[in-house]
């Protein structure tokens, strides 16, 4: 084994601006996606996820420009999620310089969309984002609308179906843990990771560097996503990598 585990900072973007308080010291404009992306790139982030949380679809075009700007200055993989509903949305993001797109609600509404997207653009760029909540011991279900709307779909079965339909990767968020800083839902992460043949990104709940380590060792995740732990400057990506390396995980060293 020498494929490195990945650390992926996630940025929420609203109408072209990074929100949810990125608080780096000495950053000129913490709302500028390009500047924030460059900072994470310098710290050794292995990929970046941009989540477009713009409410109005009129402002979707703004995200395309954000991706263009970031992709012309930061040379690591970029995933863009939020508002991806049609094949033309995917084409636009890939043309702008995104490497992958995250599909969430549109997949729940129409699973065939994932199949069509994978056939058209290749499985390598189709990330299916799954928001799951525990409903009983060892059982999780898919929720949409930021965890408010239940679908009755079993999360493990859904992940298997999505991989089968052509998802090249699963971005798994525990809605129970998201924002809690209590750590990933390791049982959920492990259940999905062991059920699908494609890579799984753990998300939701990171509060410490140890949580990242757990996500890989106990959750069997291939990559770990976090937001606030990095945004607030509590830890750098490099510190996270050092912590993971110290526990025997293979990480990419920053070669400058």
């Amino acid at each position, binding site marked *: 084994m020498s494929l490195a585990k990945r650390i992926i900072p996630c940025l929420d973007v609203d109408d072209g601006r990074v929100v949810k308080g990125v608080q780096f010291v000495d950053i000129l404009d913490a709302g500028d996606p390009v500047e924030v992306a460059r900072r994470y790139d310098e710290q050794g982030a292995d990929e970046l996820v941009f989540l477009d949380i713009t409410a109005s679809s009129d402002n979707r075009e703004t995200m395309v420009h954000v991706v263009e700007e970031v992709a012309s200055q930061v040379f690591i993989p970029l995933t863009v999620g939020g508002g991806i509903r049609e094949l033309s949305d995917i084409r636009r993001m890939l043309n702008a310089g995104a*490497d992958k797109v995250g599909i969430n609600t549109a997949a729940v509404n129409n699973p065939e969309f994932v199949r069509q997207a994978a056939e058209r653009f290749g499985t390598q760029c189709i990330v299916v984002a799954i928001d799951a909540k525990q409903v009983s011991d060892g059982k999780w279900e898919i929720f949409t609308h930021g965890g408010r709307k239940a679908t009755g779909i079993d999360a493990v079965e859904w992940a298997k179906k999505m991989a089968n339909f052509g998802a*090249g*990767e699963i971005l798994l968020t525990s809605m129970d843990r998201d924002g809690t800083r209590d750590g990933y839902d390791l049982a959920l992460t492990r259940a999905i990771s062991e059920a699908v043949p494609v890579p799984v990104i753990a998300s939701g709940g990171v509060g410490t560097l140890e949580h990242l380590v757990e996500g890989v060792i106990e959750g069997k995740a291939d990559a770990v996503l976090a937001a606030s732990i990095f945004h607030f400057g509590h830890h750098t990506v490099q510190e996270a990598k050092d912590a993971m390396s110290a526990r025997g995980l293979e990480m990419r060293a*920053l070669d400058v």
Partner: protein
Amino acid sequence: MATVAVIDYGMGNIRSVSKALEHVSGDTKVVVTHNAEEVLRADRVVLPGVGALQDCVSELKRLGLDDVIRETVCNKPFMGICLGMQALLDCSAENGGTEALGIIPGEARHFADQLKTIPETEALKVPHMGWNQVHQSKAHPMWQGIKQDSRFYFVHSYYVATKSDSVVSATTPYGFDFTSVIDRENIFAVQFHPEKSQHAGLALLANFLSWDGTH
């Protein structure tokens, strides 16, 4: 002014490739094109690509670029990236068998088919996605300034198996050592994405822009 043509046949991350080249291009002009004349005029050529090989090859043929590539690989520095590497082979196992350009003898095979024959590799995920080590099997001007076993970013489900070992320029371990770079004369083709591989990737692209096609 020297030019590098990035062949645009409507698939994948052409912009990422051209942006990364522009970042290191210096005096070289980066031309993104599907025009045969422009490709033939360029001093060096990059064939990028992600997605399905069948679509890639049929688009190249439709645009009349297959013969342009055959001519180009004989007389100027040529770099294939990801699908642009696999397109050089005879064929791929994709879709039950897809014919490619037949420039380098070999075929693309699915990882899962190989991994299931190797004990204790069943947990390895496909696509092979992320930063993995590239072990340079021989010296080449393209590796200048790039450390042995540097990590590059990969994302693919099929891997290249060439008929001859002499074209293998680097290998990468994923359950087994697969061929991640091939080279022959003025061809240098990589399975990973230099345009997404940060410092090491940009260094490789910069080397390509100064490589004269000899060894």
